[in-house]
């Protein structure tokens, strides 16, 4: 295969990536879009391999090809099994793990290319700005690797999910970044000594670790989105180093996607990216009472039985379900759908209100409900659903807290003040399913729990929903 033909195939694969992403604009066209993207990837990989076979007069190249196939087969099996076995609740961890692998691969590509080039000093493609970009690729790839690894471990509960900081951490992280960049410059001006590019590695690896470890577990969705962007930029840089256009383009697409998702998540929490990265939100001192938020003046909540809830639900004309992550933790998605189906059969209008940060990553709750066969046209996002609350008879809040806390609207002293919330408090009645009267991630009391029109149903979300289901059936 001639090089210009390979270039043509690369263009085709880029077109496939862009068309594939375009089709993600609707759940209807999305599955085909993903397949088109995968097809583009297959084309790019195939073209790359075939190029070499045609140039492959050298025996060692053929030898490497066998190794490449073996490694690819092994890794494909690993990726396939991971993708098929993973629980949907563990999706954020999986994406974090894949990010880590992508970042690592970019760093390896840059280091490998430099190592090869050193064997032939002065060859054309490792001159000019290439060494600097190679070092950048190593830096971004390494930060993505350890950062994603820490995010994975926090999401999985393997390590302390609280922010781990120490005095002067910003100075230390700043210094780590500065040293990495200085080494980049040194390598760029002294490219015959590849030791410099390796010297970058430990600093960048430590930086990814300390910077991510200083961020609380609740903020990991933002971190994963940001690192997703990083993995794209690292691939772009690796593309420049290996003189390969598809990497540059595809990496830039992913970089843009990650930045957009990061911005959406930040907006959903009304925080700036800098605040997420550096504020150590949700530390022990701001979390206050921790388990029991009812430490202040004794206030009463209206505690009811599932029977009361069932009567209210069955007699409603419209119900808006507000699912929080507590619902997913209790694995109650299917039961909630069963309850919704029963209500719909009784003529009740049922909608789901999905807050941008309802799950553990952007859009996570939608996937969890889709898995439970909730039709996607019943899932409304914040802007779509909020006008409906005023006319809703019941807001059924399941395992959510901060996203329905009215103090975000009214109390400037609240840590979540300004965060866009679902207006569940505007519904005529509110039913809240909750394990205890604890505070949310932001560690603040929720006025809604004490509202006279609120009915609290304490207990495990799944058991309570099951009780509601049987009570509605018995009516």
């Amino acid at each position, binding site marked *: 295969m001639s090089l210009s033909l390979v270039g043509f195939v690369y263009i085709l694969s880029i077109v496939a990536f862009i068309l594939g992403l375009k089709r993600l604009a609707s759940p209807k066209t999305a599955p085909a879009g993903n397949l088109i993207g995968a097809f583009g990837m297959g084309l790019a990989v195939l073209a790359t391999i075939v190029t070499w076979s045609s140039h492959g007069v050298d025996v060692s190249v053929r030898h490497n090809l066998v190794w490449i196939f073996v490694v690819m087969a092994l890794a494909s099996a690993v990726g396939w099994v991971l993708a098929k076995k993973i629980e949907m609740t563990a999706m954020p961890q999986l994406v974090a793990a894949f990010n880590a692998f992508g970042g690592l*691969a970019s760093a390896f590509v840059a280091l490998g290319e430099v190592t090869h080039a050193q064997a032939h000093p002065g060859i054309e493609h490792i001159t000019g700005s290439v060494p600097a970009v190679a070092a950048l690729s190593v830096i971004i790839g390494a930060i993505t690797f350890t950062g994603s690894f820490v995010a994975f471990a926090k999401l999985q509960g393997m390590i302390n999910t609280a922010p781990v900081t120490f005095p002067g951490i910003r100075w230390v992280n700043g210094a780590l970044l500065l040293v990495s960049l200085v080494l980049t410059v040194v390598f760029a001006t002294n490219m015959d000594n590849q030791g410099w590019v390796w010297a970058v590695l430990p600093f960048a690896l430590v930086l990814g670790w300390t910077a991510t470890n200083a961020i609380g577990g609740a903020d990991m969705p933002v971190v994963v989105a940001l690192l997703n962007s990083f993995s794209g930029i690292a691939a772009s840089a690796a593309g420049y180093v290996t003189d390969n256009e598809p990497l540059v383009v595809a990496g830039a697409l992913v970089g843009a996607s990650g930045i957009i998702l990061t911005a959406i998540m930040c907006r959903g929490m009304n925080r700036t990216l800098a605040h997420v990265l550096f504020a150590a939100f949700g530390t022990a001192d701001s979390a206050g009472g921790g388990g029991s938020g009812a430490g202040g003046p004794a206030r009463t909540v209206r505690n009811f039985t599932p029977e009361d809830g069932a009567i209210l639900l069955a007699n409603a004309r419209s119900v808006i379900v507000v699912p929080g992550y507590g619902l997913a933790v209790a694995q109650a998605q299917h039961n909630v759908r069963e309850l919704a189906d029963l209500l719909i059969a009784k003529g009740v209008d049922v909608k789901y209100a999905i807050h941008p940060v309802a799950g553990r990553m952007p859009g996570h709750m939608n996937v969890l409900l889709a898995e439970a066969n909730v039709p996607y046209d019943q899932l409304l996002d914040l802007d779509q659903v909020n006008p409906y609350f005023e006319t809703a008879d019941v807001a059924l809040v399941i395992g959510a807290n901060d996203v329905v806390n009215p103090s975000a609207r009214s109390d400037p002293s609240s840590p979540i003040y300004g965060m866009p919330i679902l207006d569940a408090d505007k519904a005529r009645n509110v039913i809240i399913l909750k394990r205890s009267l604890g505070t949310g991630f932001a560690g603040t009391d929720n006025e809604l729990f004490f509202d006279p029109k609120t009915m609290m149903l304490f207990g495990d979300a799944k058991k309570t929903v099951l009780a509601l289901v049987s009570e509605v059936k018995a009516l």
Partner: protein
Amino acid sequence: MILHLALLSQSPALLYLFIFVLAAFIGFEVITKVPATLHTPLMSGSNAISGIVLVGAILVAGQDETTFGTLLGLLGVFFATINVVGGFVVTDRMLRMFKKDKRSEKGGGA
């Protein structure tokens, strides 16, 4: 115009930057149209696309200047392939779960 093209052909770095910036803009345009419902599949799907670094890893693994360089390339191939295959497969799995409500089609929405 001719002057600019000449400039780009003189400097591959500039040409690559050119491509990078344009591609980033396409990315922004395309991805802002993805609804919130599909943000998780978008993330895993774009994650799979960032596995394109596999192509670079194959290029590095296929050179035979140094054994160590080839080894680094093969490691890159390993991790990038997991990223690519796992990413596309799990995205496919998720997207197949999204179904439209049959009732709302005849009911005309809420």
